[in-house]
């Protein structure tokens, strides 16, 4: 057991990872609440949800899905490369992850601003004239993709912070739990998108 390890400096990699997994559970449940709301309203308004979903651009959604999947791969590769003691490659892969996240956000920006310029946003006069199901669909669309985008920003900040630690050699081949944890968080962000994408873009 590791009970003697924390007499001087407490370090428990296993414990840190358990903590991260628990936090990820809470994030899943946070989105879980919204998924429940989505399924209830989809059940009540199947027709309107179908019509509203056709307004969304499947192409942009697919591109963003590919971008996030690739970024998940690059962050996973950075965890391998730190174990091979390749600091430079680690930093390049982490930087690539952040870059891909930025591209995702730019796409999102154009998608949202396109919708808003068509007058589709919560409380807009155009939307208020639409059916109740469509109001709910777009309300959920903005709330869920918005909350997801917020998680992208948090994930980027987390990865950027760990990059700084890699630069300062505080994260190395024998001490990289925080990098693994930032990777876990990034996979969570990816995973949630994997569910959001079919729910809003594909099921029509």
């Amino acid at each position, binding site marked *: 057991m590791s*009970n003697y390890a924390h007499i001087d400096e407490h370090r428990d990699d296993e414990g840190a990872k*358990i903590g991260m997994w*628990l936090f990820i559970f809470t994030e899943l449940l946070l989105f879980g*609440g919204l998924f429940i709301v989505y399924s209830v309203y989809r059940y009540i308004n199947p027709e309107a949800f179908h019509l509203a979903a056709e307004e969304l651009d499947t192409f942009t959604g697919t591109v963003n899905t590919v971008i996030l999947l690739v970024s998940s791969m690059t962050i996973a590769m950075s965890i391998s490369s730190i174990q091979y003691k390749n600091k430079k490659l680690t930093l390049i892969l982490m930087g690539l992850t952040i870059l891909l996240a930025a591209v995702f956000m730019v796409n999102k920006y154009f998608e949202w601003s396109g919708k808003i310029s068509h007058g589709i946003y919560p409380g807009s006069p155009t939307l208020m004239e639409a059916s109740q199901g469509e109001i709910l669909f777009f309300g959920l669309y903005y709330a869920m993709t918005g909350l997801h985008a917020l998680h992208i920003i948090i994930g980027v900040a987390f990865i950027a912070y760990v990059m700084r630690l890699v630069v300062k050699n505080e994260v190395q081949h024998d001490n990289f739990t925080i990098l693994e944890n930032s990777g876990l968080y990034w996979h969570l962000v990816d995973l949630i998108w994997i569910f959001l994408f079919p729910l809003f873009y594909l099921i029509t």
Partner: protein
Amino acid sequence: MSDTVIQNHEPNYLEYKGRYKGIFAWIFSTDHKRIGLLYLYSMLVLFSVAAILGLLMKIELIAPGKTIMDAQTYNSFFTLHGITMIFLIVVPGLPAVFGNFFLPLMIGAKDVAFPKLNLLSWWIYILGAAVALSSQFFGDGPPDTGWTFYAPYSFRTGTNMLPAVTGAFILGFSSIATGINFIVTIHRMRAPGMTWMKMPLFPWALYSTSWIQVLATPIVGVTLLMIVLERTMQIGFFDPALGGDPILYQHLFWIYSHPAVYIMILPAMGVISEIIPTFARKTIFGYKAIVVSTLAIAFVGYFVWGHHMFTSGMSGTALYTFSILTFLVAIPSAIKIFNWVATLHKASIDIQTPFLWALCFLFVFMIGGLSGMVLGALSANVHLHDTAFVVAHFHFIVFGGTGYAFFGALHYWYPKMFGRMYDKGWANIGLAVFFTGFNTLYLPMFYLGMIGMPRRYYDYVEEFHGPNIVSSFGAMLMISGLVIIITNLVRSARKGEIAEADPWKGKTLEWTTASPPTLENFDEIPIVTKLPYDYE
């Protein structure tokens, strides 16, 4: 460090001088004991405010019609009383104060797994409290929805809901951080030899509680977030005018808030499971049964939320299911009661203040629990829903259960926390006054509810006058008792007699270290070979 001479010169955690001075040595401390006390002091201040609000409401109800406040003030008083008591005191209460202070001590660890996260959770708590309370001071008047923020009123009312809901949302993060911290601490940092089945019952209770905190809090978090979006952006989730469903709000709210009741009561049961064997000088009866029923309450507690909504409109099947599950959750609680009573059988009991608190807990908790059964029955619930009966019931559970355990824990662990003993005579007098006042206050409300007095009304018809006078008198008596208790404790922190390391002859690990404990808790990490309550 094993040298006893050196050991005596180790500064205790209250005297220890770290990097910061004065108040900063406390508010920037990552020591779990100091963080526990930070929570204690914050909560005592907030509790005093919320208790005075309760007293003022009771004074308003002493006679029909307007007595000291108008209807809108009364509405904002019960809202603020509820938000403060639930989100700021009873939900975080026992885990944040006594869990923080005693979990590491009881499992033989030097601190919790993530000390910085622990300090952060206190800061988030203070931030959440500040945001929630700011709703009182600006905008269009204090919130008036009650602590449940029911839709659609919560986004239709002109009052200052936004800070109150946002504050409750922020407080969720504090709760989650504490929960994650405790789960990891219990998994990773138990002293050598302390297997799961040798762990004392208070840590077991904290373990179950932490899982509920982690798994239930995010749901209420996102639900409150939806209320925020509803108010700011007209998003329509719970607004019938836009196609939303207000009943869905109630479901999402109670999916968290019913398990939250077990966040409140499980650590309280853990405290009672510590106090009773110590003063009975006897191993606790049915240790494993208590552990299993603790986990069972945490599990079954997830599936009973619907009993808050029997009159809201649900299918018959849902009603029956929630009712039967509600009855089932009473079984593990009853198992514990029987185990505690069986522990007292043929014991050589040392009657001290903490033990008296535990006895009073058993008395009021049974009344609270049995009246809960009345409310869990469908037919009775339709009659009693939203009456004073419900208010009496949950005050017997939440105040009678958690509150009594909180004060019991404070009197039990006080000598360990401060190294001094309070005046036992005054402590007992305070308890007697408080206990009498408590029952005088809440028992008449059962009767009032049965004859039809609704909750949350500032006015009533003449028939309800008599019991209301008794109840309001009880409130004044109870507050006097609280004043005696708190004054005695505050005074004794400086002037009390010096306490020994183990004044109650307890057997769990926290009693093996100095009073107050040193910064590192133990000079050497203890090695556990015996069961926790070994009095043989």
